[in-house]
């Protein structure tokens, strides 16, 4: 192939600022760098010396799209430092809050960022204004799906982004149960639209298979984004408190984010919906399993593009789980649990929309933060993404540069990366010599 320099200033439709440089010499990839470029805000450092009560709403500002994930992970972390065990009711309300997040966040990624790839167009803005067009139908489905996810989180947690009601020890205000019947109807209404999307994303023809390891929370009782042990596809299973020991941090000198590999095997791994489906598909809601048999048979899968299909399936999981909870929950009046501050150490682990999220906190006897740490999913996926891209380029150097660029974007987009955790451009430079 020719000696060429190519630069893409804007690989788009992802959440985050990132770059990609590929150096090709004598038709071989000699260097490939996937570069996270977001400027850091050092929030983990900024919370040191602050009272623990101030931390969850502040640290949730790490991310716009998955602020609820950081909020609930931080709450769990602080509760563990203080020896607070939330009530069963609080745990169910948090699950509802989180289901709303997953519904909205996955729908944003799938229908606004990935759908143009499926339709072979650049943007949802290019979808024809024709109700009989599949793209038009799916896009307008997505408006209903995202709106319903937003509403679910709002009625339980007060807002879909930077929710004010989830708190350390419980909820500052309980939802009005009178809103539940209407919410159940809306969730039932979007089921068929979600299944239409699952069918569409199952037909995505792209394929990139590499032998990645997978990691996620696993709850033996039910499919869970908030509680469980950490497991990987090698069969290792550890408690949340040991999660940090499981990982080896790698400084990547050209990236604003560190990467991670397993501490024992030194191998890369993948977190996110694909990992969750590969490891937990038998725990999905029975109704979800019943309606999606033909699609679930695809998992476990090593095709990274199936992360898109896995996200679409998780939307239905969250709808069905929410319907079950809203139908059966019987709210009782309770205030957030409050104890005298104490010195402590806490670890919180949740499955954020794009993978396993870890928070760590130490407090002093006054309840002030001594140390805080955060490991986000995209940092964990960073080395895996880079290795997937290497494999893709090595096997496809015969393709023209436009195709290489487009498919590199699609691979990155399939991971649903979140660099701030989120921004939006990726500069790509291919150097051929």
């Amino acid at each position, binding site marked *: 192939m020719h000696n060429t320099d190519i630069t893409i200033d*804007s*690989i*788009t*439709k992802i*959440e985050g600022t990132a770059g990609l440089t590929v150096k090709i010499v004598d038709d071989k990839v000699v260097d490939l760098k996937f570069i996270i470029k*977001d*400027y*850091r*805000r*050092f*929030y983990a*450092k*900024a919370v040191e010396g602050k009272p623990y009560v101030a931390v969850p709403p*502040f640290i949730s*500002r*790490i*991310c*716009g*799209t998955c*602020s609820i994930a950081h909020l609930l992970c931080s709450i769990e972390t602080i509760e563990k430092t203080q020896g607070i065990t939330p009530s069963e009711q609080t745990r169910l309300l948090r699950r509802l809050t989180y289901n709303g997040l997953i519904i*909205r966040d996955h729908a*944003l990624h799938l229908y*606004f*960022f990935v759908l143009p790839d499926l339709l072979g167009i*650049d*943007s*949802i*803005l290019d979808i024809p*204004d024709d109700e009989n067009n599949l793209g038009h139908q799916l*896009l307008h489905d997505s*408006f*209903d799906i*995202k*709106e319903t996810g*937003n509403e679910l989180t709002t009625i339980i947690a007060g807002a*879909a*982004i*930077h929710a004010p009601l989830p708190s350390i020890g419980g909820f500052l205000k309980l939802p009005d149960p009178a809103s539940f019947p209407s919410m159940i109807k809306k969730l039932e209404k979007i089921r068929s639209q979600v299944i239409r999307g699952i069918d569409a994303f199952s037909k995505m023809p792209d394929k990139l298979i590499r032998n990645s390891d997978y990691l996620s929370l696993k709850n033996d009782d039910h499919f869970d984004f908030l509680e469980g042990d950490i497991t990987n596809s090698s069969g290792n299973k550890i408690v949340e408190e040991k999660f940090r020991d499981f990982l080896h941090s790698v*400084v990547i*000198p050209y990236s*604003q984010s560190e990467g991670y590999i397993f501490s024992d095997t030194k191998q890369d791994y993948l977190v996110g919906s694909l990992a969750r489906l590969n490891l937990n598909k038998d725990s999905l809601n029975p109704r979800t399993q019943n309606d999606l048999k033909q699609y679930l048979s695809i998992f476990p899968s090593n095709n990274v593009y199936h992360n898109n299909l896995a996200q679409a399936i998780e939307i239905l999981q969250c709808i069905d789980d929410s319907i079950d909870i809203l139908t059966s929950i019987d709210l009782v009046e309770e205030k957030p649990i409050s104890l005298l501050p104490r010195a402590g150490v806490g670890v919180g682990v949740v499955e954020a929309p794009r993978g396993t999220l870890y928070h760590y906190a130490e407090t002093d006897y006054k309840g002030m933060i001594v140390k805080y740490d955060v490991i986000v999913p995209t940092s964990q996926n960073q080395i895996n993404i880079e290795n997937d891209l290497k494999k893709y380029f090595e096997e496809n150097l015969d393709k023209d540069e436009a195709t290489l660029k487009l498919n590199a*974007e699609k691979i990155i987009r399939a991971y649903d990366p979140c660099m*701030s955790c*989120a*921004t*939006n*451009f990726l500069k790509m430079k291919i150097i051929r010599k």
Partner: protein
Amino acid sequence: MSDTPKLIIGWFSFTCSEDSLILLTELLNQHFDEWKKVIEFRHLKALKSNNKIEGLDVAFVEGSISSPTQAAELQKIRDNCKYLVAIGACACTGQPSSSRNTFDPNDINYKTAYYLKNFDYSQEVKKLADFVKVDDEVNGCPMNTELFIATVSKYLKLLNIV
């Protein structure tokens, strides 16, 4: 291609959580069909690949400025738009992204020091108005959506689109 005049806008993100961008994508749930008729999204990297900065009527800018590179990008946006609107708390006030301005340089850990030293961070994180003229502000964390919609309406009228 329609000849109907449209408001030509761009959306840009600097250092922040991008929560206002997410809210914009959520506003599209209700406003997509309506706005598509009267607005040209000339620069919106969250939704399209073919982005241009030239000839913008209004640039909506979220996030604070963390580096000389970002300051230069902001100036370029200012040079290419008629009006610039600061979106969200980080753009309007610098906070909370500017939290690092208060760090004691003698009390930062190796990880923080590594990144500050090896990438082109400015001494301080600043709001947009510290660098360029800002015509309007839509404050909030995330932005106040009612105020944002009112601001869009204001420029649609000001530029005789509706």
